[in-house]
């Protein structure tokens, strides 16, 4: 782990090539070090964080004064850090008979701040929860006294979670979890606080900064989407090919329980939408046997989206997995107990994350918890069906290999798309795709659920969403288009993104036909498109050109009357 001084040195590096991000930081204590740490940690993750640090203890003024520096700064992210030490000071000053309501009244003021920020900005808000500080006024009996400080503090953290569930743009930075991990002794230093008003010790700054940067990264769609597993001594103890199914270690006994608990963790990731793949040096039938027959296996074959077990080089096999999934290597994590395999994969595919698993499997889980690799900023039911969809994709690839002619293959897929304007059912999924789509995304403007709702209801926009199903199954909602009315004649394609699961199926042509139909119906004659390059969306660089748009300055223009419908094999559902 980096120390604070490393982070400070990062600020002297050349930041010109990094992605810029405007973050406003409001705190009720001295926050200079935290601000430096966040900027320095940003550099580690390729972010140049332009950080506005409000003067000491100005949270309320900055938020409630519409002319404050905060609003001039126009932040993309607002980070609010109210310390538990200040919270304790407030509590100390309250009348004893009102202390039972302390958490409730505090959360009201938090909600008010959040709602004012939401009215006045489009920023995402990160609120730090409260680290536990117990005045021990009631001893452990405080747990039975609703008016005690620790009772109210814990309640407040719970209420913060509830507020975050209800408020799309509110995210919690889990400071309390950091203190639980590193301990209060390391998190807080009374002597330094006394003459600086700093409440986070220098040792804890990197952890704090990393938590913030991880959330910011996930705002930008930099998420881990796939976990690739080795099998022997990673998913179970022992070597299946040598030891046989009766002798591998898994279950309730000895080291076996380590692997069982590890598998439960992977299962939870799978259930929340992380794609699980297997990449093992084994004979396929032998490697699959425990999944099919071992009574203690938590993971089943149905949990694995892509299963590769052979004797080829693992880096090559991971490339094959990447082809099926069609996601970036930087969104993949590879777990293998063997340092040799890890280094081969790391050398050949530098973008992939390859944790240095501890030698002792008993330590796997705590080590992986510590890395906290799987941040997200959304969760929907569709996430849990992702495995099936990728299994279908693998079947499609096999089906495709039986055709020599691509159009025969596409025709044979029997594709149908449900095409309609955004509605309340599709809004969450559209917002989620807006956050996640990196490759097939023409302008990479990220929208939250609230944004999408607003756009869906506004008469300045026309919207379209698309599902795609075929003989192998339903891909769900895979594409969205937002058209902005520029004037009576022209529509600007503000947003066009598509899941990479459905590339090379003619979906682009189908979507453009639908856009043209909608535009005509509403009396528009011109479509304008724009491509904004990012490190990830190279694949759509020539998107408008190949669909027949003409260059017009930095934009692309399509004359609707001249448009000849692009052919494809997708039918409207």
């Amino acid at each position, binding site marked *: 782990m980096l120390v604070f001084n490393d982070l400070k040195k990062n600020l002297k590096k050349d930041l010109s090539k990094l992605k810029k991000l405007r973050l406003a930081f409001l705190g009720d204590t001295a926050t200079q070090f935290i601000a430096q740490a966040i900027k320095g940690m940003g550099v580690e993750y390729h972010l140049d964080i332009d950080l506005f640090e409000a003067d000491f203890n100005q949270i309320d003024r900055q938020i409630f004064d519409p002319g404050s520096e905060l609003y001039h700064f126009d932040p993309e992210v607002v980070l609010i850090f109210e310390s538990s030490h200040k919270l304790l000071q407030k509590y100390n000053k309250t009348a004893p008979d009102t202390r039972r309501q302390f958490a409730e009244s505090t959360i009201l003021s938090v909600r008010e701040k959040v709602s004012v920020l939401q009215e006045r900005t489009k920023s995402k808000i990160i609120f730090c929860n409260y680290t536990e500080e117990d005045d021990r006024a009631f001893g452990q009996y405080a747990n039975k006294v609703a008016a005690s400080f620790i009772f109210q503090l814990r309640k407040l953290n719970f209420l913060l979670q509830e507020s975050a569930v209800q408020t799309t743009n509110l995210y919690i930075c889990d400071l309390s979890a950091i203190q639980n991990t590193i301990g209060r002794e390391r998190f807080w230093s009374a002597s330094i606080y*006394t003459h600086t008003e700093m409440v986070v010790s220098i040792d804890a700054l990197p952890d704090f900064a990393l938590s913030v940067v991880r959330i910011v990264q996930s705002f930008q769609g930099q998420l881990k989407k796939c976990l690739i597993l080795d099998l022997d001594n990673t998913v179970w103890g022992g070597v299946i090919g040598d030891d046989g199914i009766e002798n591998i270690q898994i279950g309730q006994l000895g080291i076996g329980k380590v692997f069982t608990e590890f598998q439960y963790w992977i299962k939870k990731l799978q259930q929340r939408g992380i794609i699980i793949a297997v990449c093992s040096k084994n004979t396929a039938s032998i490697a699959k046997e425990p999944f099919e027959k071992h009574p203690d296996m938590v993971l089943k074959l149905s949990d694995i989206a892509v299963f590769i077990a052979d004797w080829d080089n693992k880096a090559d096999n991971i490339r094959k997995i990447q082809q099926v999934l069609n996601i970036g290597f930087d969104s993949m994590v590879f777990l293998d107990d063997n340092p040799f395999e890890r280094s081969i994969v790391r050398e050949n595919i530098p973008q992939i994350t390859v944790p240095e698993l501890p030698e002792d499997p008993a330590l796997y889980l705590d080590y992986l918890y510590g890395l906290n690799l799987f941040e997200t900023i959304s969760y929907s039911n569709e996430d849990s069906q992702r495995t099936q969809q990728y299994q279908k994709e693998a079947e499609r690839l096999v089906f495709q290999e039986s055709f020599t002619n691509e159009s025969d293959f596409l025709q044979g897929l029997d594709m149908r798309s449900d095409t309609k304007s955004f509605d309340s059912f599709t809004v969450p999924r559209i917002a989620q795709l807006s956050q996640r789509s990196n490759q097939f995304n023409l302008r990479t403007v990220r929208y939250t659920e609230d944004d999408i709702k607003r756009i869906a209801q506004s008469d300045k926009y026309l919207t379209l969403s698309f599902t795609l199903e075929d003989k192998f199954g339903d891909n769900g909602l895979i594409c969205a288009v937002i058209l902005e009315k520029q004037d009576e004649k022209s529509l600007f394609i503000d947003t066009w993104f598509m899941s990479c699961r459905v590339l090379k199926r003619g979906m682009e042509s189908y979507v453009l036909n639908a856009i043209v139909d909608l535009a005509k119906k509403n009396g528009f004659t011109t479509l304008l498109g724009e491509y904004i390059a990012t490190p990830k969306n190279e694949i759509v660089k020539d998107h408008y050109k190949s669909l027949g748009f003409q260059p017009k300055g930095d934009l692309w223009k399509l004359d609707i009357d001249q448009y000849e419908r692009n052919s494809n094999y997708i039918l409207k559902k």
Partner: protein
Amino acid sequence: MEKKEILLVLQAIFREVLDDENIVLSEETVSNDIEGWDSLTHIQIIVAIEQHFKIKFTSKEILSWKNIDEMLHSICEKKV
């Protein structure tokens, strides 16, 4: 540990924290003599000294030092 040795350790800590290899400390050095030694970096320096020598300063001590010699003095007292 000799006062001179401690001075060299201090110098190394100052160089690391302030990221400046040219810093030279003497017993008479005060904060105005060193670029970047302000109330913020002072905290970092204190924490680094505490960690290196495995000692803890009181908040009173932290506020009382006027020059390097007095810092050396506090460290020596605790390391005996």
